[in-house]
């Protein structure tokens, strides 16, 4: 009897939490991708993606909870319902579209190749040197597709880890998205671009589970809304000095 009561209590508790989970929109970001998303020393999530997520939530009039999730588990986590959306500077790719759906793009991305000053290798000769990149990114996949999967491509768990090996001199070049690369180059003397803006028609979108069309439509309208009222431009200028849409 007691056990049954307990079971009913647990069930009711479970239902209640399921109901409240529907009200809160759970958003995942990586938290290791400055200046787009990063964790401060106090454990607070900050960055362009985080502020865009907050602005979108305000536009949709929904309560949001933003959590940090390691990059190479971020899509499986979405598919398994750990959260409802990914706002983490994720490029819209055909391969990812097999697993999840994307909102309309919220900014455009280019790839960059960074190396120490004095590096003579050109983009065509990159197959001869070591190339660092974050695993599971458009950068690493571009390198694999361009230079072959057996080129000396070193894959790191995070983007800063790749850059730290570049500054140690352990890896000769790093392929990364343009804006984080530009920030890193301006903060680190002695490094420059081998290629500044490689256009791979890369658009960044918000990942949602397949079939969640209502949420996707809401996010699309919210992106239009923050573009229309200037919130987006304010955030973009604050981080990059320009509108990166």
């Amino acid at each position, binding site marked *: 009897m007691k056990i049954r009561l307990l079971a009913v209590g647990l069930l009711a508790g479970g239902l209640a939490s399921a109901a409240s989970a529907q009200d809160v929109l759970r958003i995942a970001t990586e938290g290791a991708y400055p200046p787009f998303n990063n964790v401060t020393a106090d454990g607070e999530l900050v960055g362009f993606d985080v502020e865009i997520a907050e602005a979108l939530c305000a536009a949709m009039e929904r309560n949001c909870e933003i959590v940090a999730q390691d990059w*190479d588990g971020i899509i499986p986590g979405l*598919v398994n319902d750990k959260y409802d959306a990914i706002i983490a500077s994720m490029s819209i790719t055909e*391969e990812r579209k097999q*697993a999840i759906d994307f909102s309309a793009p919220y900014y455009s991305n280019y790839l960059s190749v960074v190396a120490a000053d004095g590096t003579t290798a050109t983009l065509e000769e990159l197959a001869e040197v070591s190339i660092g990149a974050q695993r599971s990114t458009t950068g690493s996949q571009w390198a694999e597709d361009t230079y072959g999967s057996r080129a000396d491509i070193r894959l790191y*768990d995070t983007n800063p880890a790749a850059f730290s*090996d570049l500054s140690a001199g352990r890896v000769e070049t790093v392929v990364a998205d343009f804006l984080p690369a530009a920030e890193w180059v301006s903060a680190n003397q002695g490094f420059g671009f081998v290629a500044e803006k490689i256009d791979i028609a890369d658009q960044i979108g918000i990942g949602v589970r397949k079939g969640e069309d209502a949420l996707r439509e809401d996010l699309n309208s919210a992106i239009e809304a923050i573009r229309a009222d200037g919130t987006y431009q304010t955030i973009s200028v604050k981080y990059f000095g320009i509108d990166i849409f």
Partner: protein
Amino acid sequence: MYQDLKFWVSDTICAGLSPLAGPLLGKACPRFIDGFLVTTELLALACGIGFFLAIALTFARMSGRTVLVWPAQVFVYVFRGTPLLVQLWIIYFGVGSLGEQGLGPFLWTFFKNPWLVGLLVLTLNTSAYVSEIFRGGLANIERGQMEAALSIGMPWLRAMRRIMLPQAIRIAWPAYGNELILMMKGSALISTITVMDLMGQTRTIFARNFDLNTYLYAAILYLVLAGCISAFVAVFERRFRHDTAR
């Protein structure tokens, strides 16, 4: 050259497996086998070198000389008492961040290479565990044997090597086999320092196909490796049994 040979081996294996692997693994097959070979190679080297390092460590710990006992004890305590992942990151990212200025050109050629750092850490880690296993084996051998050897004038080191250690290894062998399997599983962590071992390749393949079966295929390959290790351990175990039966 050697790298090309390994690529050729995995291409050949994949070509041979193509009726079976083709539909399942497709383009990913050479990557899986590349990774499998890297893991196998690292394990064989780490466990081979680690075995002899472990013997040296065990001798140092049993020698009764403070200058040898203490460093060996501290080494074993540190490498047994910290996670392998922490050791990898301290030595790869931590020591590596000193760069060429901090480490000098000679050490830097070593620490620059993720494969060599992986090998170093795996070797040191396994030698600490294996030395503990050997120490356990030695503790099970009658002390009188050592005393007898010394009393007929045999030097300590030779008595250890010829009388004590062979018996200790026999006793410790099943535990040693277990350590080899644990090491195989632990080796998956070197994928975090950019070594393209089986786990590194698997994560890279998964990053493109988002097919959870990818991890299943990796598990099967790890099981194949575990089977080979078990068979290797069993062969020696049988030989040891013959030796003692005689």
